[in-house]
């Protein structure tokens, strides 16, 4: 084993392992750093500690049986992955869900996005040493989890969407609770901005740190808020609208420099835009069936393939499904955003300080289990 560790060329260099057990790596991640004092010369993320073989499992399960797998890859945006998988299979099999179901799915997806960003916000600040926002965010997040728990039955990894709609209808209590939550979250923005965004110590920790510019992002396939912070307004909800996203009026926040502060601002602004989408969806949601009745449990899509890309909390996720006409997929491949987002760190972390490494790792918002699948 020892020969696999990079041997420092000069006497002053040494190798340091960040992880795999480390309070601030978001999942089981190991980054092998070659250090010269406090400066990082090379960073090599080592992943695979959480590889569970989801893609192999996909070939041995029916489409509906793969639903729980979908939400366990990125457990923080489980409903978004669920939703995406349903949309992919619906596209492949030619199933059209009713209008109400589309709105319900969009509302739940955006709620999930907010909860994922809230958790990122708390953990990012915890990495920087401010422990309190973590608990404030979890307080807000509990509201979302309670709302979604009431409707779907689970708090973190949902299997709420079905091919052709959703598993259960939502009632007026859901609508009430969601509106109350949006109101409450909006009243929190001044707190977050006063305590964190305007805090001099915080700004000095994240300004001009970990710059990911457009070209770097393109070469590594970086997507999501990291790409938008670099200045590219690329959001699947606007570029290739799916479900009913083209009926809402919302903006894509972008940054300019691509440093950690821009990424932070973009995600905070995205939460506000998600609130706008939810409000509009609640207003526009029609009555009607919540599920298409004629869809069989064992969906048998025709032969062919589909590549469906959508915007999850971390960036552009895509399901690539190849069907051979049987109820079991021939191939399920999931393109996860954290893969490229983590990969770009091999370049971004060069010539930075160890203390910045933690800030950068936190600011790109990765969830390692989705990289490992």
């Amino acid at each position, binding site marked *: 084993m020892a020969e696999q560790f990079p041997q420092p060329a000069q006497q002053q260099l040494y190798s340091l392992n960040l992880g795999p057990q480390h309070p601030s790596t978001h999942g089981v991640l190991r980054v092998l750093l070659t250090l010269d004092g406090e400066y990082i010369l090379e960073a090599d993320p080592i992943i695979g500690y959480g*590889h569970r073989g989801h893609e192999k499992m996909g070939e041995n399960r029916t489409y509906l049986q793969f639903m729980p797998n979908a939400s366990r890859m990125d457990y923080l945006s489980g409903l978004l992955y669920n939703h995406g998988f349903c949309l992919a299979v619906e596209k492949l099999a030619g199933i059209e869900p009713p209008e109400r179901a589309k709105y319900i799915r969009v509302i739940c997806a955006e709620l999930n996005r907010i909860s994922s960003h809230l958790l990122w916000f708390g953990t990012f600040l915890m990495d920087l040493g401010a422990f309190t926002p973590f608990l404030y965010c979890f307080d807000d997040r509990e509201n979302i989890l309670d709302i979604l728990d009431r409707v779907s039955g689970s708090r973190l990894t949902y299997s709420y969407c079905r091919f052709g709609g959703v598993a259960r209808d939502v009632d007026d209590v859901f609508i009430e609770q969601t509106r109350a939550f949006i109101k409450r979250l909006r009243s929190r923005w001044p707190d977050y901005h006063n305590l964190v965004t305007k805090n001099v110590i915080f700004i000095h920790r994240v300004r001009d740190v970990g710059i990911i510019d457009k070209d770097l992002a393109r070469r590594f396939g970086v997507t999501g808020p990291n790409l938008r912070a670099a200045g590219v307004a690329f959001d699947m909800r606007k570029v290739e609208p799916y479900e009913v996203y083209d009926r809402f009026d919302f903006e894509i926040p972008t940054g300019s420099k691509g440093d950690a502060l821009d990424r932070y601002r973009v995600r905070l602004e995205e939460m506000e835009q998600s609130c706008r989408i939810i409000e509009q969806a609640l207003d526009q949601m029609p009555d009607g069936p919540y599920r298409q009745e004629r869809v069989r449990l064992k969906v048998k899509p025709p032969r062919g393939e589909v590549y469906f890309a959508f915007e999850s909390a971390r960036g552009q996720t895509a399901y690539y499904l190849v069907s051979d006409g049987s109820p079991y997929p021939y191939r399920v491949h999931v393109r996860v955003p954290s893969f490229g987002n983590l990969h770009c760190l091999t370049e971004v972390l060069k010539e930075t300080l160890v203390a910045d490494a933690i800030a950068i790792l936190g600011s790109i918002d990765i969830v390692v289990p989705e990289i490992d699948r």
Partner: protein
Amino acid sequence: MAAKDDALRRIQELLGPGALTADPDFRAGVSYTVACPKESLLAVMEIFNACGFYLESLTGLDFQDTLEFVYHMNAYEPRARMAVRVLCPHDGEMPSVSGVFASALWQEREAWEFYGVRFSGHPDLRRLLLPDDADFYPLRKDFGTVHAYRKREEVYG
């Protein structure tokens, strides 16, 4: 539009019009499919790089008669996605595009460890997700429980 049309034109020049299959309805999420022979892969990738595309994903498919690698390329425009499909025999080698797209460094490592196909020219081909001493290729259809092992024409006709 500009990037996509530019890339299309240049690929047509390189490979000839027969290599491109259009899907105007974007039903499968891909606007054009490029059937690319192994030797031209690097040239095609360089065209995409020059036109501002990024390598979105690299997928391997295992059929009885051949392996297939599908490169999904996308640009920051609506409906710009193109799929580059490369056939490769089970015991063959693929050229590495990591010199063109840095994201291929990890994507090809993953493809190698799951399908057993070496990518020649890859600077650092070692295991990514599997343990270092794994001597099996999990996504091949002769490993573990397999529901169906088909020929390519059974799926794609």
